[in-house]
């Protein structure tokens, strides 16, 4: 190996070590709960903990609600802006990027000031209200990813001509949106959805300050009080996130018009393998 190839190789190796070493160490540590042997004891403890299941289910449900609400907000907005107000697109894009700039802590304190139990809209007065507020907050946090994904998906199809074609055939706007536009940006919505899922599953600030039993605060609690379980949890959370990313890759690689609702998981797997 010549010197000129050694340097890039070394850089890649250092980068890989930087990335994988902590992961490997965490995984190794999570296996060493029982002294002297490697075992999945920490994972057994985690899965046996009812709070793990409760908080995980809570966060999954919150994530799904966020995805549905986010898609219902973003798809019509992106469609309408592209169709009727293309000049406003930079502005809308800027607004959707704000959550990346404004820390969630600012968002949640704003919520608590506006929607506390003695305000005109007492969202935090009940558990259900607080859950709804939490989902609203998650929609905001996922906005940059959702909007980007959907907007890019819309750029890939000629939404104006498709809209006009559907209109000339007698379709009304809601029909066009749900029968023509949405199915054709399905892959984009899904990739936005997986990113949203990954964000919501591990989110801490909003859930903690609104005092909801979500997975993020549970992770933090375990990390503060236990030794081996947090490592196992970190690996689990990592696996869930990477599964989401893999799904995103598979769905994202389907060009519009080539996706069929009836596609089997087997075919998806084959595609992923290629």
């Amino acid at each position: 190996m010549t010197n000129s190839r050694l340097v890039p190789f070394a850089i890649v190796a250092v980068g890989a070590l930087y990335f994988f070493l902590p992961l490997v160490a965490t995984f190794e540590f999570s296996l060493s709960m029982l002294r002297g042997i490697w075992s999945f004891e920490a994972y057994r403890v985690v899965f046996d903990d009812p709070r793990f299941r409760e908080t995980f289910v809570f966060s999954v449900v919150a994530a799904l609600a966020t995805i549905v609400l986010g898609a219902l907000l973003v798809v019509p907005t992106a469609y309408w802006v592209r169709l009727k107000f293309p000049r406003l697109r930079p502005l809308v894009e800027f607004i959707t990027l704000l959550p990346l700039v404004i820390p969630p802590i600012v968002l949640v304190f704003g919520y608590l000031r506006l929607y506390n139990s003695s305000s005109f809209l007492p969202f935090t007065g009940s558990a259900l209200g607080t859950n709804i507020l939490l989902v609203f907050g998650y929609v905001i946090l996922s906005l940059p990813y959702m909007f980007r994904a959907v907007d890019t998906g819309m750029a890939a199809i000629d939404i104006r001509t498709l809209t006009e074609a559907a209109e000339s055939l007698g379709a009304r706007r809601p029909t066009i949106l749900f029968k023509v536009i949405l199915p054709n940006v399905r892959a984009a919505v899904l990739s936005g959805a997986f990113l949203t899922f990954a964000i919501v599953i591990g989110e801490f600030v909003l859930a903690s300050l609104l005092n909801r039993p979500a997975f993020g605060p549970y992770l933090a609690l375990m990390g503060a009080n236990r030794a081996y379980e947090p490592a196992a949890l970190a690996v689990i959370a990592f696996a869930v996130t990477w599964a989401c990313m893999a799904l995103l890759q598979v769905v994202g690689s389907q060009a519009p018009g080539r996706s069929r609702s009836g596609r089997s998981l087997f075919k998806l797997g084959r595609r992923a393998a290629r």
Partner: protein
Amino acid sequence: MSFLQISNVSKRFGVNTVVRDFDLGVERGEFVSFLGPSGCGKTTMLRMIAGFETPSAGNIVIDGEDVTDTRPNRRRIGMVFQAYALFPNLSVADNVAFGLKVAGRPKSEIEPRVAEMLALIKLPHLAERYPYQLSGGQQQRVALARALAPSPRVLLLDEPLSALDAQIRLSLREEIRALQRELGITTIFVTHDQEEALSISDRIVVMSDGRIEQCGAPFEIYNRPTSRFVASFVGTLSLLDGVRESGSTVAVNGTSVTLAEPPQGATGAPVTLALRPEAVKLEPSPERINRLSARVEDTQFLGSVVRLKLSVAGGIILADTFNRPTAPPPLRGALVDLYFSPSDVFALKPGAAPGPATAA
């Protein structure tokens, strides 16, 4: 009143007037083409009929119903786009069924209608395919079937052949015309291709700069263009500048050319004469009484036709002669006489929009 009546329609985008005082009546079952260069307003006019643009002035009436402010989805028109615009997520059959489903027709009616439409475009075997699995020509035929399935009152075709390659363009254009005749559907066809317009239309509306330049049957548009613009846009034409003499003759650089009828303008006024290449011959005949001396600048052998580029005093004239194996075309530089009859030369309206000279 005509089946489709467009009265005094204008369209402005900001300070730009794209369509001016457009007046046209289209009879039931008629095939009318809007022909013009890009930016002449033909597509904008079509989109106003479809309802995608609202006229700034004037109104549009279909079958006695004023649709000027009617939403596109209530106009019962069918439209075919240059980019096909098939719904990528739906199969061919579902694409064709879309309009019928939206209209809430029962399944028992939709299925036979879709089958009928697919048979009409000769693609019944592709019903389950998706648009991305079809060629451009097949996609456009499906788009045509989709537009026709809900039995629209008017069919609008927005340069439907422009994205296809030459051979398919030719066959699909014949298919469109045959289908249109069979169904008797009133059709507006937008194109910038004069050959396309001449070959399939009942009537052609030649447009320039938002205005109707001339409206008439293809025969009329080709043989009797009323303006220099139409003359230069439709077919090939040689132009000669001359000066009006008394009677129906025009002096072109000292040589008198006789016209069938006296041109407009006073004696001594400048006149532009136009000649089709096929009207100019190198042999005299009892009708071809006009004679000009010319020099052969170039010969183009086009197979059945030989096109000669001849320079005369006052301009360049193109002449198409049939190929005869026994008589080779004149050589470059040869001096010849060319002949044409008074009924084949016409004076263009003075003051009409100037078009580019086409003697090249």
